[in-house]
């Protein structure tokens, strides 16, 4: 991992308070895999100590520039508070403190493996990256849901992922089918035994996915969130209770995670 100031090369506002941020950093891009995140700095514009801590943001995509090596790192960010609002004001040419790539990644699927992605809201980011990396070589499907069409910021970009199957669901029916993203899953998994499921989104959604995969022949990986101080394993601020063998331990989301096996998560914990 590297911590450096890199230039912002593009900023696009999407609907519903989401934006796409792109930075140029060949050294970091060379290391990025689906599931990785970065800690993005707050000290651009004028130097200020407030807000203070870097914000954890997943990698949405990593693309080559005019040469062939990866160089551009893309993020999809939802305006959620002061820090993300500050990030939304970045413009091409600004410098941004980028620390990463950090954390664990979604496992590289074996060639014959069927991959099912289940995402909610901004949780689509690491799954989009999985699709971009592996859709050409793997049989993959995406289930993507939110309350309403404005909660599916990447909808318009999904065709360029090369996914064969994209199932959109909204609770109000404003895009795709009406319903929760988990509703079609039991049937789908039953007819696709042995699949790997990668999920990222609100905890309640991932918990529902875990309950479904527990009863079928499927392996689940989830990407977890928590407040973070350092992102590199030093502050112990980001821990969650994680089941390891027959014990539950306080485990760092930034280091041992954010990607965990579904059955390692104690969903009963509320925090």
């Amino acid at each position: 991992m590297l911590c450096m100031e890199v230039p912002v090369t593009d900023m696009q506002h999407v609907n519903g308070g989401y934006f796409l941020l792109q930075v140029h950093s060949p050294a970091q891009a060379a290391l990025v895999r689906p599931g990785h995140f970065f800690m993005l700095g707050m000290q651009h514009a004028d130097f200020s100590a407030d807000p203070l801590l870097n914000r954890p943001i997943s990698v949405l995509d990593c693309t080559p520039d005019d040469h062939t090596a990866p160089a551009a790192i893309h993020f999809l960010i939802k305006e959620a508070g002061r820090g993300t609002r500050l990030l939304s004001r970045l413009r091409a040419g600004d410098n941004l403190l980028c620390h990463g790539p950090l954390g664990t990644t979604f496992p590289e699927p074996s060639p014959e493996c069927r991959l099912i992605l289940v995402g909610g809201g901004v949780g689509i980011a690491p799954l989009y990256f999985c699709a971009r990396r592996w859709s050409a070589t793997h049989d993959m499907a995406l289930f993507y849901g939110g309350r309403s069409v404005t909660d599916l910021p990447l909808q318009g970009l999904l065709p360029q992922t090369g996914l064969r199957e994209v199932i959109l669901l909204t609770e109000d029916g404003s895009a795709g089918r009406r319903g929760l993203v988990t509703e079609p899953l039991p049937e789908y998994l039953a007819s696709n035994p042995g699949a790997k499921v990668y999920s990222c989104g609100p905890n309640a959604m991932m918990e529902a996915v875990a309950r479904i995969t527990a009863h079928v022949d499927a392996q689940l990986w989830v990407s977890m969130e928590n407040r973070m101080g350092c992102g590199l394993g030093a502050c112990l601020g980001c821990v969650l209770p994680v089941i390891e063998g027959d014990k539950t331990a306080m485990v760092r989301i930034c280091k041992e995670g954010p990607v965990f096996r579904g059955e390692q998560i104690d969903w009963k914990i509320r925090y």
Partner: protein
Amino acid sequence: MDLSVQIGPLRLKNPVMTASGTFGYGLEFADYLDLNALGAIVVKGLSLQPRPGNAPPRIYETAAGMLNAIGLQNVGVEEFVTTKLPALRQYDTPIIANALGNTIEEYTEVCRVLAHTEGIAAVEINVSCPNVKEGGIHFATEPAQTGRVTEAVRRVMGDMPLIVKLSPNVTHIVPFARACRAAGADAVSLVNTFVGIAIDLDTMRPRLSNLTGGLSGPAIKPLAQRLVWEVCRDVDIPVIGIGGIMNATDALEYMALGAVAVQVGTANFIRPDAARQIVAGMADFCAARGITRLENFIGAFLRRETS
């Protein structure tokens, strides 16, 4: 130019250390900076037995600072010595262990292990812990308690330098520093975090599972500098300044107020190479001011004040 400083019996190549609990066990940062460039590394607080720490959420950002209630999660002193220290020892930088306990016996047991371990340059005791044998009153909130634990630890430490890390959550800091000096401490480090609270008005729940947490970061710098200034002015003991140091200017302010060295904490979270940058900034400062020995700069503000 000479950046080296003396803390009691300990000679450091420069005055910049990393603060306990903000630099892991050191190795986490080896990718980001040359650990050999630091004055010293203070590792995460160690107890006799491993501790699981508090339930999440453990941190909450506040204006120019953060509250933490990690709950002193650590691997325990034995595990540290056998699995973490060997790799750390390879560096040419003094390793300072930070020790804690809930009884005087726990402090002395932890310190006895550390005093007999090769590769530990000094021990810093964190007295901001409840004394479970005396109704949970903190070792840090009565000078006599601080003195008693310091004295007991001093006895088991042999020649190893002993630093006592004081809590800022007291009415008068000076009697605590005096008690440490009288009990044989080689230096005091101040400050630890300020106790704070943050709540969520919508849910009427605390932001931290532990309710209270320790405030750190730039928000505490003026408060911490006042305490450092008072101790440096009134007590004859080396002081290590801590609190909200983000850059060389902040660090040099502490030294002008009389601190012989500094510790960098929360800044490590934002820029993992912050401590290295601060060393470089100090060298630039000395070059620009024609200072050949940084040690001569210590207390510059105090001298101006009394002249």
